[in-house]
């Protein structure tokens, strides 16, 4: 079984040089940071807002806020982790303004351990994603992950999709490390369980549903 390594592991020193140049007023350096992380920030906030227009607003707000507060970035953590924390907070604020009746919180504990116990243990077909078109697959994956509680969803997105470390995820979401680990396990198991119904090896081999 191969290790799953975070995919964002570029040289931090180069990033720090850009941050310092941006702090000194070089707009091009800040633009470089925007280019580097806009896709990631867009994906992350869309997982929270679940709405593209809101995500567009939040991406702009988050980068602007980061720019205005660059002086406060202490350089003890990665710029990206700091930026993600700002973006997550902006997205949650947007959601609260839009749907004040539905408080979304990342630290709600909504389920017990038992909810994550595997029930579906049939194996998947060898390349399950190939059973569907790209559009169908995106739809399945989007609907499935949206069904997770927000606190689980965000831990999974930051750790497994965006490649942050456990420590960085904890920092970005304001959670403890044990909380990140426990949510990550439960998120992974719940997603696996839910995807199993789409990806199970077809028992009859005749392609019928």
């Amino acid at each position: 079984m191969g290790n799953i390594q975070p995919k964002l592991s570029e040289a931090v020193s180069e990033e720090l040089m850009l941050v310092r140049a941006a702090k000194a007023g070089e707009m091009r350096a800040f633009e470089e940071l925007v280019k580097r992380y806009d896709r990631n920030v867009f994906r992350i906030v869309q997982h929270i807002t679940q709405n593209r227009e809101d995500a567009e607003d939040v991406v702009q707000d988050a980068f602007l806020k980061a720019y205005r507060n660059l002086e406060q970035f202490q350089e003890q953590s990665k710029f990206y982790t700091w930026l993600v924390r700002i973006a997550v907070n902006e997205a949650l604020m947007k959601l609260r303004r839009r749907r004040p009746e539905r408080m979304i919180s990342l630290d709600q504990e909504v389920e017990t351990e038992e909810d994550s116990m595997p029930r579906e243990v049939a194996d998947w077909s060898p390349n399950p994603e190939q059973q569907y078109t790209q559009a169908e697959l995106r739809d399945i994956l989007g609907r499935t992950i949206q069904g997770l509680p927000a606190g689980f969803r965000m831990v999974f997105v930051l750790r497994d999709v965006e490649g942050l470390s456990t420590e960085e995820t904890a920092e970005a979401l304001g959670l403890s490390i044990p909380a990140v680990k426990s949510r990550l396990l439960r998120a992974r198991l719940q997603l696996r369980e839910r995807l199993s119904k789409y990806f199970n090896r077809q028992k009859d081999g005749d392609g019928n549903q």
Partner: protein
Amino acid sequence: MNCSDFLKELTDYLDGSLDERTKEELEEHLAWCHNCFVICNTTQKTIEIYRDSEIYELPEDLRSRLRSAIMQKCEASKRAKSSGPEEV
């Protein structure tokens, strides 16, 4: 190692952060427990599918539009800061 011990260690195993001894015990369990073997494989596949998926990708045209908007706002903020009264 039994099935519930295996579940507790699964996340660290998939992340490659288990110590050698626990890893060996876990792999020994996987060698004979088919259910845990399937759960391990399909959980890893779940992670890979999401990692490779293109849900919520930022289209290039929207990306450049957003970037110009961001940079315009930052420029405006910079100008306001240098010309206006200092913000507290």
